[in-house]
């Protein structure tokens, strides 16, 4: 899978692309940890834009959970957005969409984290 990172004023946006499975999870986790730490301290918020994410396995779900916890500890707002139906189903089934901030699109996610930060 490919992972792009965009640094915006309000948030760092992580954009994974492809399949987030057992093999891809460790690299994804490292990239998100780097984004959470930030070059000059933690960002205000981290958003994972899942528009290009085709599949998430249980090992991939774990990364979202670990990230949510780490963000909470670092007082960084955290949100996901733009889940494809197949990925959304995994989040619903596992109960993750009830405990994580899952938004329809990036605009909604940015609005959510800026509201949470203020």
């Amino acid at each position: 899978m490919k992972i792009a990172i965009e640094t915006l004023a309000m948030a760092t946006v992580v954009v994974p692309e492809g399949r987030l499975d057992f093999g891809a999870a460790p690299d994804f986790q490292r990239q998100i940890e780097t984004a959470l730490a930030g070059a000059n301290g933690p960002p205000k918020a981290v958003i994972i834009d899942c528009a290009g994410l085709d599949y998430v396995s249980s090992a991939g779900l774990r990364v979202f959970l670990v990230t949510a916890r780490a963000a909470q500890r670092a007082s960084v707002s955290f949100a996901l957005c733009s889940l494809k139906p197949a990925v959304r189903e995994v989040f619903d089934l596992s109960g993750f969409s009830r405990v994580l901030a899952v938004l329809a699109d990036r605009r909604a996610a940015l609005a959510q984290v800026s509201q949470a930060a203020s």
Partner: protein
Amino acid sequence: MSATSAPAPPQHVMGPVERLADLLLVRPGPYARAFESLIVGLIVLSVASIGVQEIPTLPGWATRALRMEEVVVIVVFSFEYLLRIVAATRKFAFIFSFSGLVDLLSIAPFFLLGLDARWLRALRLLRLLRVLKLQTHILEATVAERTRVLAEKNALLEQAQAQIRAELEVARALQMAILPATFPATSGYAGAARMIPATTMCGDFYDFIELSQGRIGLVMADVSGHGVPAAFFMAVARTNLRDMAAHHAEPGACLAHTNRALCAQNPLELFVTMFYCVLEPTTGVLRYANGGHNPPYLRRVAGTIEVLNGAGGLVLGAMPDVEYPDHEVQLRHGDRLVLYTDGITEACNSADEAYGTERLVAEFQAHGDGAPGSVVDGICHSVAAFAGTAPQSDDITLTVLAWDRP
């Protein structure tokens, strides 16, 4: 001194010249390398000077320097030639060997014809052959030594790997052994299960738990990830659930308590999806709760498929205070229930298509009316046929429960 001890073997004591020969010619090391470089340098210098001497306008001092150089070369070569004879174990063999003759030819003209035999000095180039041969020899010896060291290290690695593999095999056997091999004997009910790990150790598990008053607990679970960490977490989760199942009648309460226990002992931040149901054999009532697991399918005797998709709770081990609502379904004679992990629905073929719930439902609907063992076989066979040669990426586990008239 005992009479049987052998006398010490006669030892050859090297004289100073022999020691010098040994140091400069035989034993590999800095002295031998330096001496060899000196010889090569002198060969090149003396051959190059042949041409220089032909220059007619060469000043007198240059001619004298070249003559001096030739004398030095002859002295060093003669010294080396004598040392080689000293170092050789079979001296005549050396003298009449190719390199022995070349060495001799490179100095002999001087002694026979004096300094004028300059063109014969070109013969010295032949001596470079010896140096090249020697270097090839050293290179070969170095390669052989490195190969030997590498082979030794490889053998050690293989040994270590074999040990790890053997230990993993034992761990896997233990893991398989804690899973029930047979469904508890219950009038009218039959069950079968299959677990196919993707790696040696598996993060999936299923369980049949015999509860009070003849009730039976059925579990299907999937730990995030694979391998040893997932297997450990699986063992902890299974033990906790069995413990809670003995104390709490409602499946939802069992999951809630198991979840709390797992959250308290979860250093790796793993989690487990878990479906847990309790069967009341006399009435056929099945009560269930779901912690983020794929909902099971119920095949009615008429062939229709129902999904046990009552609202569930979060996966277990993620957050401590989660509630898991209880649901209830009435089984009837002839019904089949399949519990499975996503290793089945997410099994991919070489075109990267997933087996999916539709194929599972279709297979279950078409061939789900047999004995549980044959239904399990049929589904596994269908998944394997779909995946073809594509590698199995996730653990596959399923159980089938049947209620037929006793």
